[in-house]
């Protein structure tokens, strides 16, 4: 707790020192932002001439650029909001409903605290580590304190939208990723331990992975000069494999909850989980279709693939459940949907609608097997199945992206003459599967090693596991001094 307080103090102090840098007009915002489009602009035309002059055209051209930017910016701001909604309330409710009543606020609080914490870290150094210029493994410090991040577009990252938009959109991804891990540590990890571990994990696992896959010159980047071009449209490896695999490590490190698996630990409110799942589905349109970074046909295509995969995975899980257990359940339906959404994430900007259905079906059935069969086989206590859904689903999706990606949706590779080359196996490029495996392997390795090391450090400094008594009384009361419901009055 001391450590946290110190970190917090730092937060309280830092801005004073950076205000000066910020207070004078930033070089990256040479024009007042409002100049762009807020008021009706004079026509570009010189009314007298009957022949259009080049300068008239130039003015018009600028206005077109502004209109295109406004259109894309509208979609990206909405997408950013949708992705934030995925964490809070989406994921918080989804997880909150799955735990026992006495730990409801504790798990929801973790998602919420990460919304705040990662935002601060992102502003300080996170964005720079992910998208600043750097090595193939990690970005540099060029954008520390968001230096140079203004309303001008950055051609590498969404050339039609303000870089600030890109920055805040990517932040939302950085928030949800660690929040996913809390599904594995639920009901027994200390809040102080969670805060410290997640901060470290964000800096040392998420940031490198994000840079490698999406950063210019990143080792695994497919379009901006990586050595091993891995396809990951919206975060199958960066978000889901890293969080899912780390979740598994956390579950193993922390050990089982008191009484697991003997005692029944049914979800305290599937209604909450249901709401959360619906919001995840809706929010995921921002996550995947937003990853087009523009409001174009690619965004639509990703939107459709996302929806189709979620639907097919729901059906897949339900049929598997109905067949093997005799009854299809609401928890099965929502779990299936999330599995499908996870699996389509890396593929969403590369595949046509029908393959999206296939990816969804595979993920639905596959994650059902992971959660019901593999988990009980190995006996680890991944409380809310963060690994079973995100780790497994993310891995399936990353592989299937290599199978189904096609240049008809996005021409990722070109030959010397600029002609589109085949992208995935079905498109004629079987070698892509190899790159996908490299990407998957890298994500697994980083997550495994990073999580063990950082958990150990956290354990030594503030401790990770709540006391037995806390676990029995519930973390809501003992860690946060609250109860989720006080219905008796």
């Amino acid at each position, binding site marked *: 707790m001391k450590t946290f307080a110190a970190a917090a103090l730092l937060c309280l102090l830092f801005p004073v020192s950076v205000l000066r840098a910020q207070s004078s007009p930033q070089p990256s915002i040479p024009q007042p932002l409002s100049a762009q489009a807020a008021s009706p602009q004079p026509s570009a035309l010189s009314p007298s001439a009957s022949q259009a002059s080049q300068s008239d055209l130039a003015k018009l051209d600028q206005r077109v650029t502004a209109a295109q930017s406004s259109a894309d910016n509208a979609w990206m701001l909405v997408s950013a909001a949708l992705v934030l909604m995925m964490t809070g309330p989406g994921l918080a409710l989804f997880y909150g409903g799955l735990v026992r009543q006495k730990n409801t606020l504790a798990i929801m609080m973790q998602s919420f605290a990460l919304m705040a914490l990662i935002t601060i870290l992102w502003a300080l150094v996170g964005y720079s580590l992910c998208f600043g210029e750097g090595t193939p493994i990690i970005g540099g410090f060029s954008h520390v304190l968001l230096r140079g991040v203004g309303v001008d577009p950055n051609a590498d990252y969404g050339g039609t939208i303000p870089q600030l938009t890109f920055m805040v959109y990517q932040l939302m991804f950085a928030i949800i990723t660690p929040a996913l891990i809390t599904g594995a540590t639920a009901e027994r990890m200390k809040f102080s331990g969670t805060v410290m571990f997640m901060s470290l994990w964000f800096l040392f696992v998420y940031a490198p992975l994000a840079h490698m896959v999406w950063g210019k010159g990143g080792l695994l980047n497919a379009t901006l000069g990586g050595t091993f071009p891995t396809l990951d449209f919206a975060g199958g490896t960066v978000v889901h494999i890293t969080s899912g695999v780390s979740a598994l490590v956390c579950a193993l490190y922390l050990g089982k909850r008191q009484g697991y698996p003997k005692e029944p630990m*049914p979800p305290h409110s599937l209604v909450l989980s249901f709401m959360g799942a619906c919001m995840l589905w809706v929010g995921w349109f921002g996550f995947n279709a937003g990853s087009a970074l523009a409001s174009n046909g690619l965004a639509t295509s990703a939107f459709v693939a996302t929806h189709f995969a979620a639907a097919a995975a729901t059906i897949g899980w339900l049929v598997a459940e109905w067949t093997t*257990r005799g009854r299809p359940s609401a928890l099965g339906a929502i779990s299936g949907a999330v599995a499908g959404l996870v699996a389509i994430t890396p593929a969403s900007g590369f595949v046509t609608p029908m393959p999206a259905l296939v990816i969804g079906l595979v993920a639905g059935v596959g994650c059902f097997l992971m*959660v*019901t*069969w593999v988990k*009980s086989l190995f006996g680890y206590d991944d409380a809310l*199945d963060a690994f079973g859904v995100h780790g497994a689903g993310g891995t399936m999706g990353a592989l299937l992206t290599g199978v189904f990606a096609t240049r008809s949706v996005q021409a990722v590779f070109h030959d010397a003459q600029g002609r589109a080359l085949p992208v995935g196996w079905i498109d004629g490029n079987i070698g892509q599967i190899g790159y996908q495996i490299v990407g998957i392997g890298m994500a697994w390795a980083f997550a495994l090693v990073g999580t063990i090391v950082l958990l150990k450090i956290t354990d030594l400094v503030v401790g990770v596991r709540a006391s037995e008594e806390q676990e029995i009384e519930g973390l809501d009361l003992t860690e946060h001094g609250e109860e989720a419901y006080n219905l008796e009055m």
Partner: protein
Amino acid sequence: MKLIKAIVRPNKVDDVKEALGRVSLSGMTVTEVRGHGKQKGHTAIYRGKEYDVSLLPKMEIEVVVADNMVDDAVAAIIQAARTGEIGDGRVFVIPVEQSYRIRTGERSEL
């Protein structure tokens, strides 16, 4: 004075209340409970993990009555709560030694 403790199906509470009213008993206290007996329960499955839901929702009705009212009250309850199916519930009669009305503070004979 006796405490009559009746465990009945949740949807029978209103009927029991009416039936008691007909024998001029209006005071009662009702509690949500879960019961286990001959009635078979259900299996719930959450992500493959099975749980026995063998404690089924019931309502417990407590009525304190004068000794001479016990038989009428029990009869009324039984008649109103019966469906004839397993799971209808029980009625227990327990002795009560004293009874007070809080509002007046006095010991009452009901």
